[in-house]
């Protein structure tokens, strides 16, 4: 009875923990991650040398193992904490249940702290999973007890900092998707301020900074909880672009009304969904996409000019441009995946899909028109890619066009595959947030998994050359890097060959595989559109119901059915 009374004083924490405990996926995820971590650690500890007499060779390797395990834990934390915590309060707002909490005797501080405790409790269990493994790294030598303790505290502090930030965003924004996106962006900025090494645990100063920011975040969250409880949903990107519209219109008074881009088509013609996607969406409207293009293109052109006018002897070094190319890839993949995954799930979340599906628009056409905005975005993203590729072709004076053709293929094929993958996931999942997380997770696991599998096999001395070669051949990241290096190293390292020159068959196989995957996904989406959108499909063949209907035709009709 006493225990029950204690539990009742923390109703939100109790409810959240009970909810999580009743979900099967909680245990599946925890078990899967624990299994992965322990199998990985065992391979790491014993994979090279076993437990034989030569085990002594491993002495002193503890620091490497420790760093690797910490990196994995931090990567998992950075991915999972926002996903688990960003919906804590925002989901209550979306379900109109936050008001019910606010009218109780619970103070905003109590609500925020209980939400924070509930969400971080589950993630701390993930953190604790690694403690025994970290302790084992100590036995290998190379890690001091102080580093070990500091590492553990660093993990906990990072978890609390990110969790508190997610709770603040959740209290401030209306939707979980907005809270999630802002959490990631702000956390990246915070990490860059506090430490240069992203996947290394914070030091003493970092732990103090993380704890301090966590407290600040929780205090601000409690402060804004009531004021932001009934805030309406807003499209911040669209509002930002509209703000820019007003600014440019004011400027136009000075310039005499110069308009570079006229948005044509005031009302929808024959393709209404396409009209909405390309006229009313922030990432589909030409005028707004042009601004995205300027934001992406400007630093690239700036970097190119720096390289051209550099008087330094090492002006062949294109490190800045390569960094921009990497960022462009990440931004492009994220933008295309987010946009494509949201297309259908957004209609579901906003309850507009049912009405749209009751119109006579065929499902294939709905999908095709829905994708028109993403296609337009993809074309716009191709411009900065083309700028970099053509500049490097000219800059390094390569005689063959391998580099440009292969680079163009990577952009066109990979972005197409990502577009259809994200759309397929958006078709299957019930809401916008799960669609976005699902799409990013699948693409991240696929791309990251293939990119890391090869180096990891080498690190662990797993000697299976055919498997390692196949993984490397299928990895998009390896292909992008190989193509990029073939341009740079052609000059700086005496003519590195392009993938086409080193292995034409593997290159063709790689692109054929991804092109086929893209077409396959496209075919599946179109074929399954009726089913996953949620409407009765066009008849394919006589079915069971037709026989039943024929039987009912001859049966006497009942106007009233009373059991």
């Amino acid at each position: 009875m006493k225990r029950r009374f204690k539990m009742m004083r923390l109703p939100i924490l109790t409810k959240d923990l009970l909810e999580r405990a009743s979900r099967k996926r909680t245990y599946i995820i925890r078990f899967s991650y624990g299994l992965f971590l322990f199998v990985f650690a065992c391979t790491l500890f014993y994979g090279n040398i076993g437990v034989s007499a030569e085990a002594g060779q491993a002495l002193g390797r503890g620091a490497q193992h420790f760093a690797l395990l910490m990196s994995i834990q931090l990567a998992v934390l950075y991915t999972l904490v926002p996903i688990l915590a960003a919906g804590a309060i925002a989901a209550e707002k979306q379900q109109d249940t936050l008001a019910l909490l606010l009218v109780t005797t619970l103070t905003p501080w109590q609500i925020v702290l209980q939400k924070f405790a509930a969400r971080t409790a589950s993630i701390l269990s993930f953190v604790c999973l690694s403690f025994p493994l970290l302790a084992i790294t100590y036995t290998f030598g190379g890690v001091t007890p102080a580093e070990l303790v500091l590492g553990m505290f660093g993990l906990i502090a990072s978890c609390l900092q990110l969790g508190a930030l997610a709770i603040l965003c959740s209290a401030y924004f209306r939707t979980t998707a907005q809270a999630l996106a802002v959490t990631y962006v702000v956390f990246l900025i915070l990490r860059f301020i506090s430490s240069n090494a992203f996947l290394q645990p914070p030091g003493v100063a970092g732990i103090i900074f993380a704890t301090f920011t966590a407290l600040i975040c929780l205090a601000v969250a409690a402060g804004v909880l009531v004021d932001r409880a009934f805030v309406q949903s807003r499209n911040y990107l669209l509002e930002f672009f509209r703000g820019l519209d007003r600014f440019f219109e004011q400027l136009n008074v000075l310039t005499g009304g110069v308009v570079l881009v006229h948005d044509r088509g005031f009302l929808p013609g024959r393709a209404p969904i396409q009209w909405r996607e390309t006229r009313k969406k922030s990432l589909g409207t030409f005028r707004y996409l042009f601004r995205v293009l300027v934001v992406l293109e400007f630093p690239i052109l700036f970097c190119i000019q720096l390289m051209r006018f550099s008087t330094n002897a090492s002006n062949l070094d294109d490190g800045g441009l390569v960094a921009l190319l990497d960022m462009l890839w990440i931004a492009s993949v994220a933008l295309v995946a987010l946009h494509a995954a949201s297309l259908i799930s957004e209609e579901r979340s906003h309850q507009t899909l049912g009405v749209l599906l009751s119109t006579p628009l065929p499902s294939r056409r709905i999908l095709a028109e829905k994708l028109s905005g993403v296609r337009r975005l993809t074309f716009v993203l191709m411009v900065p890619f083309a700028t970099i590729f053509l500049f490097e072709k000219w800059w390094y004076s390569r005689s063959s066009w391998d580099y440009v053709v292969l680079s163009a293929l990577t952009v066109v094929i990979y972005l197409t595959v990502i577009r259809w993958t994200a759309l397929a996931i958006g078709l299957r999942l019930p809401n916008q947030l799960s669609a976005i997380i699902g799409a990013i997770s699948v693409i991240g696991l696929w791309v990251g998994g293939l990119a890391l599998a090869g180096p990891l096999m080498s690190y662990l001395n797993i000697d299976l050359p055919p498997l390692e070669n196949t993984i490397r051949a299928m990895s998009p990241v390896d292909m992008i890097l190989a193509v990029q290096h073939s341009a740079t190293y052609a000059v700086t390292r005496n003519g590195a060959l392009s993938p086409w020159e080193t292995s034409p068959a593997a290159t063709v196989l790689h692109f054929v595989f991804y092109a086929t995957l893209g077409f396959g996904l496209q075919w599946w989406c179109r074929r399954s559109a009726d089913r996953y959108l949620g409407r009765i499909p066009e008849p394919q063949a006589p079915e069971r119901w037709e026989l039943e209907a024929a039987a009912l035709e001859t049966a006497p009709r009942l106007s009233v059915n009373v059991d």
Partner: protein
Amino acid sequence: MTEKAPNPPPMVDIRNLWVKYGNFVAVRGISFVIPRGEVFGFIGPNGAGKSSTIRILATLQQPSAGYVRVDGVEVRQDPMKIRRKIGYMPDSFGLYEGLTVREYLHFFAAAYDTGEDRRDRLVDDVLTLTDLKHKIDTQVDGLSRGMKQRLGLARVLLHDPELLLLDEPASGLDPRARIEVREILKELSRMGKTILISSHILHELSQFCTRIGILEAGRLMTEGSLEEIYQRLGLMQLVHVQVLGTTDELAAHLRQIAGVEAVDVQSDRLSIRVRAESLPPEDLLDHIRAFGARVRMFQPEAMELETAFMKLTEGTTA
């Protein structure tokens, strides 16, 4: 001799419809017909299966078993043809943000493939009918809830559908907005549209529905015109009677009379269930007087839609 044209099929013909979600059975073998031009009121508690049935008619869901026809076309046979015939308004629906009323209606006019030259006039007509013409350039997310419902009605009328499927069109509206929606529906009924409307507001349904179906726990408890239902329920109409003196003998006498179904002797009254078509309340009164009883109170229960609903349903869900 001119050949007689065949009778057109009923607008809605549902036979032995079952809807299942996994192990959960939402609709259990219901059957009913809605003739053309009728306004069919679909009544039932939450979870009775109304929305599931309407979603199937709107071709948004497969029946688990049974047979559903709209204007003679089975929903699985040619769903696209049915979509051109229906106008569907779900119980809760969102409106696209960032569109004006004009853009919203043009969007759906284009979705129904109406000619671009006709759209301005169509939009004008439906806005006039729903009294929203003055809001034509207002953002849809800035409209009040009542206006959004009227805009939803304007949308379903754009392609001049033969059948309107309206799932709780008046839910959550204030009294004025409810009356406005009701008036629009009456006008549509006068225009000859077939309407299937589900609602919880029984009194309003009884004012303009020509047929009613009462659904509970996935079963159709009764269906027919209001008169038919009243008559059907009147078969067991309850009459409360207070008489002076002994009641047991009177009860025994009444049980012998043809048309009396049951007599319940309560502390201060007799509750008599009678079949109204064979024993109207006035005849029952004559029998009681003929027995010599002095009547203090004679009260046949008024049969209204709400009474019928309460009598037929127990508040259970599927």
